[in-house]
Structures are given as C-alpha cells and as structure tokens.
C-alpha cells in the first residue's frame, strides 16, 4: 500500500529552507539595526571642521559567531570617544599637546598658544542616545523579519 500526501514536497522544501531564510533575514535586520545606530551616533557627534576624527572612527564590523545569523559590533576607535561620551572635568590644556593624529598639536587645530581652559562636560552620550533611539523600533523590525522568512 502506498500513501501519497499531495503537497508534501512543498512542505518539506519549506521546512528545509526556513532556518536558512530566518538566518538570512535576521542577519539583514541585525546589520540594518547596527547601521542605524552608527548613523544616529555620527549625527549626534559634534564635528571639528579640521579633523572629524571621532566621527570617522565609528565603524561597523562583523563579529565571529558560532551560529549562522550574522552579528555586528560598533567600534569607536578614537582616544576621544570615552570623554566625549561620558564627560570630563574642566581642565587646562597646553597648545603643545599632540592631537595623536595627523592634525599636529591642539594649538594648531584650535589656533591658540599657551594654555586654554576646557569647560567641564557632562557627556554628549552620542552612543547611548543612538542606541536608545534605535532600540525602540528593533523588536518591530525583528518581528517583520521573522514574518517575512516564514511567508517565503
């Protein structure tokens, strides 16, 4: 006796493809979310017209993961990132202090000699605010992404 269920091939194909589609869609959503955080963070940063170093140092890199869903990390590769994000006390800075980039000294960049008083800052929180702004829509995006994978 042979029992044939019509349409089982399609069900089988669907079940085989479902994890692949889920990985693909979730990877895209992860990348989209992290790109949006990067864009929001750069938009919130003050820019110095000469260097723009901090903003340019924000990069999106893939992480090595065991699963097939791609994950990403946001790297802010500048010594100024932490004080700008979290704030600093007021302090004097010498014009001869190197900027630690190709722009030369702080005096060259801000056009002063001797010492300059840097006002205290409570932090710009460019990263925290960028993450908070984008987190509010992340669950919706994940929902949509899973939904699209299931419908395929």
């Amino acid at each position, binding site marked *: 006796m042979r029992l044939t269920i019509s349409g089982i091939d399609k069900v089988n194909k669907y079940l085989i493809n479902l994890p692949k589609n889920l990985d*693909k869609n979730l990877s*895209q959503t992860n990348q989209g979310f992290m790109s949006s955080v990067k864009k929001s963070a750069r938009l919130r940063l003050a820019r110095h017209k000469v260097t723009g170093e901090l903003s340019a140092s924000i990069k999106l890199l893939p992480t090595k993961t065991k699963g097939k869903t791609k994950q990403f990390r946001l790297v802010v590769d500048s010594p100024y990132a932490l004080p700008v994000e979290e704030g600093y006390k007021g302090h004097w800075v010498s014009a001869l202090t190197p900027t630690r980039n190709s722009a030369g000294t702080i005096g060259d960049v801000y056009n002063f000699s001797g010492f300059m008083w840097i006002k205290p800052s409570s932090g710009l929180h460019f990263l925290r605010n960028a993450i908070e702004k984008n987190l509010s829509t992340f669950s919706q995006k994940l929902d949509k992404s899973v939904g699209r994978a299931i419908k395929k």
Partner: protein
Amino acid sequence: MTNTISQATILSDIWKNFFNRLKTDVTSVTITGSTTVTIQTYTSNFPDKAIDDKTAYPILIVDTPKISTSPLTASKSITEGTIMVDIYTNQRESAEKFLSLIIDSIETYKGDLSAVGIRDIEIADNDNDMVERGEIKIHNMSVTFSFKYYYSKTSGF
C-alpha cells in the same frame, strides 16, 4: 536615464541607476507657507564637514547597495540586495515630503529599472531620526529598498 549593469561593476552600476533616477525626480518640495525647499546636495556619503552648515541642507544620500548572490537555475544566478536612501533636512515637513517623492519616483520607474535587470523592488524598511545641533535641527528620514538582479553565471565553475 538607466545604465546597463555589468557584472564587473555591479555595485556602482546598480547605485548609478538609483542615484540618477532620484537626482532627476527628487528636486524640491513645497511646504507650509508656500516655501519651496530644494535639495542642495546629492551624494553617496554624508558630507561630514557640512553637518553644521544650514545652507548645505537638504541632503539626499544614496548609499552603496549591499548584495548577496545565490544560484537560481543551472545557468542563472540571482543577486538579492538592499539600497538605502536618506534625506536630511531642517524641517520635518519637507523630510516627509521628500521621502514620499523618493518612494514615488522608484515606484513609478520600476519598469525602467526592470529593463536593466533590477527587479522585484520593494520597501524593506524605513526609519527616521531628529537631532538638534546648536541652532539647527536635522531631520533624517530613510527608506531601504530591496531588489533582485538576475544574471547568467560564468560557466565551468
């Protein structure tokens, strides 16, 4: 208006097709008070040094497409991709109107894009953001289009 797509320069060719289309169609909008707002900058990257220059806005950015390839048939492959379009303005109303124009332009000319192989264009995502930078407010709206591009595989591999 459309550019043919070569396998060797697929990313820049797909980008050019979207960019040229939008540069032609999305130029200005009229907002409350009969003010006409005209796009000042079309680019592929945010012009960092102009961020605090109010006269540089509105800025329309067509990002480089992201693509991945998978086999379709024995002789054909399919490239699935996404391309993000951003608009930065100083008024929320104009940002919304520009976003509508961007979507309308791509929807209207789907046929032209299909003629060069860019098919199944759909809105995959959209987003918005607002930041106050000193005296200027920057409104950002973005839309991500997904698309498919079919091409013949190189045989023998």
